[in-house]
């Protein structure tokens, strides 16, 4: 009772004071909040959160094919793991100009085993020159640098006629990048040197890519990007697969050109490449053209791609079934941007014109090394996110 008497006048006093001062107090409060935000903002600028960043990407993909030819790894049974992946990238700035970047990727096709895709120390000389050392991407194609990041690509799958001819996505070594402007053209020059060891599968076993050396140049002007690249390496079998010592210090070359146009609505990308390996392994020429058009959140596209080997006549007949390739592929699909960091892509690809080859698809040979299917139809649905 006593308490209530004491509390009541207090409450009344408080209430009246509140009522009178409501506007000025709320204004003051808003001002204080803003100042607090400013302080937080100011203190966070050079703090850990500003020097370190973590980004990720995810692709959830399902594919099914009309037969077991194995295009993009798909057969008659719906497959959710081939092509699905999760990546995490951390970037830590040591100084204003030096940073460490590492990217871990877990792929469904490898049972979600985690692999270090990138890990490098980069130094920016602040005059356009950047040098990087560690595990780096082999920059063979226009989309090589973000091959894993489905969200950054217009397609459900990059055209495998071109993107799968060199089964190497990263190497250990050093590179130098030089960015500069030539009038209105932004130029990027890149040169790399290093080596890589890869398990290429049951047929060829483990292969050492020695002395990987090459360069690329990219020119962007308004909506256009032109890119050209040349790389070479020496291939050496380090652990035999089904074929014994297939590579014995064999020289190989890769040269490619690409052109893209993107004005925000119309999208056109085309690349062409030739590869040449001494000995019986496939020498190839391949390319593709993609045309797309953005209509609000949809980007429908069509792609024509081709792949053929150019050294069939020189090949040891025993290796012809494995390394004579011929294939055309026609794709139609669309990207749908569900939100600003999530996209859904649907794609139908028809691969045909294999001639009497496997079409470059390893599962498409029977026990007698003869072609099984002379075409295949593949349906893919892919969710791609970045975060």
């Amino acid at each position: 009772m006593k308490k209530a008497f004491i509390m009541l006048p207090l409450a009344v006093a408080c209430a009246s004071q509140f009522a009178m001062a409501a506007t000025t107090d709320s204004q003051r409060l808003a001002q204080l909040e803003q100042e607090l935000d400013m302080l937080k903002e100011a203190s966070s600028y050079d703090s850990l959160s500003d020097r370190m960043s973590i980004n990720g990407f995810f692709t959830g993909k399902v594919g099914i094919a009309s037969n077991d030819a194995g295009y993009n790894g798909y057969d008659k049974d719906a497959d959710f793991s081939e092509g699905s992946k999760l990546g995490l990238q951390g970037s830590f700035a040591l100084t204003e100009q030096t940073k460490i970047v590492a990217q871990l990727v877990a792929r469904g096709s490898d049972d979600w085993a985690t692999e270090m895709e990138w890990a490098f120390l980069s130094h920016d000389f602040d005059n356009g020159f950047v040098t990087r050392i560690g595990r780096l991407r082999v920059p063979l194609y226009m989309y090589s640098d973000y091959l894993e990041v489905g969200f950054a690509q217009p397609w459900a799958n990059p055209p495998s006629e071109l993107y799968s001819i060199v089964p190497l996505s990263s190497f250990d070594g050093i590179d130098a990048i030089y960015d500069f402007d030539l009038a209105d053209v932004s130029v990027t020059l890149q040169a790399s040197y290093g080596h890589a060891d890869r398990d290429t599968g049951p047929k060829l076993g483990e292969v050492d890519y020695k002395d990987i050396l090459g360069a690329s140049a990219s020119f962007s002007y308004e909506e256009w990007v032109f890119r050209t690249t040349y790389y070479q390496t020496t291939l050496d079998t380090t652990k035999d697969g089904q074929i014994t010592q297939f590579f014995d210090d064999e020289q190989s070359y890769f040269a490619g050109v690409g052109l893209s146009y993107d004005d925000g609505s119309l999208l056109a990308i085309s690349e062409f490449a030739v590869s040449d390996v001494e000995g019986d392994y496939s020498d190839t020429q391949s390319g593709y053209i993609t045309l797309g058009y953005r209509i609000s959140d949809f980007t429908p596209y069509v792609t024509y791609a081709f792949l053929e080997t150019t050294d069939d006549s020189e090949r040891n007949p025993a290796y012809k079934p494995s390394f004579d390739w011929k294939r055309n592929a026609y794709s139609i699909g669309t990207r749908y941007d569900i939100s600003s960091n999530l996209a859904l892509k649907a794609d139908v690809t028809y691969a045909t014109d294999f001639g009497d080859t496997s079409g470059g698809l390893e599962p498409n040979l029977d026990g007698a090394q003869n072609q099984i299917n002379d075409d295949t139809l593949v349906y893919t649905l892919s969710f791609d996110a970045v975060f």
Partner: protein
Amino acid sequence: MKLLAKVALAAALISGVAQAGVVVIANPNGPDALSKAQVSKLYLGKSKKLPNGAKARVIEQATGSFIRGEFHASVTGKSDSQLQAYWSRLVFTGKGKPPKTIGSASLIKSQVASHANAIAYIDSSEVDDSVKVVFTP
């Protein structure tokens, strides 16, 4: 006198409404003017420096906000999802990271007012003499 003030105020309001739109701002000690190409390059990370050679501190508005859509539609020509795809190409190659995002115009102004190399965009109605307009798309 009162009437005159009212007329002036009304005129200011009308002109303010008529002109309301996005403007690019800088610190009073920063660059005097930037071209559309320069602003676009700064916001796409293609150039990292201001015309005077200082490292630019570029500030973005929040993803999905109306003003961000309006700014990019007229300067870089990219939608939010195109920007996201664009930056993911740079982020996941370790080549760059998107500009810092600040969600309120008053905070943006205070950042620009206190950093000589800051570049930002706000609605023209928010402009005061703590910052200066360097480009109007």
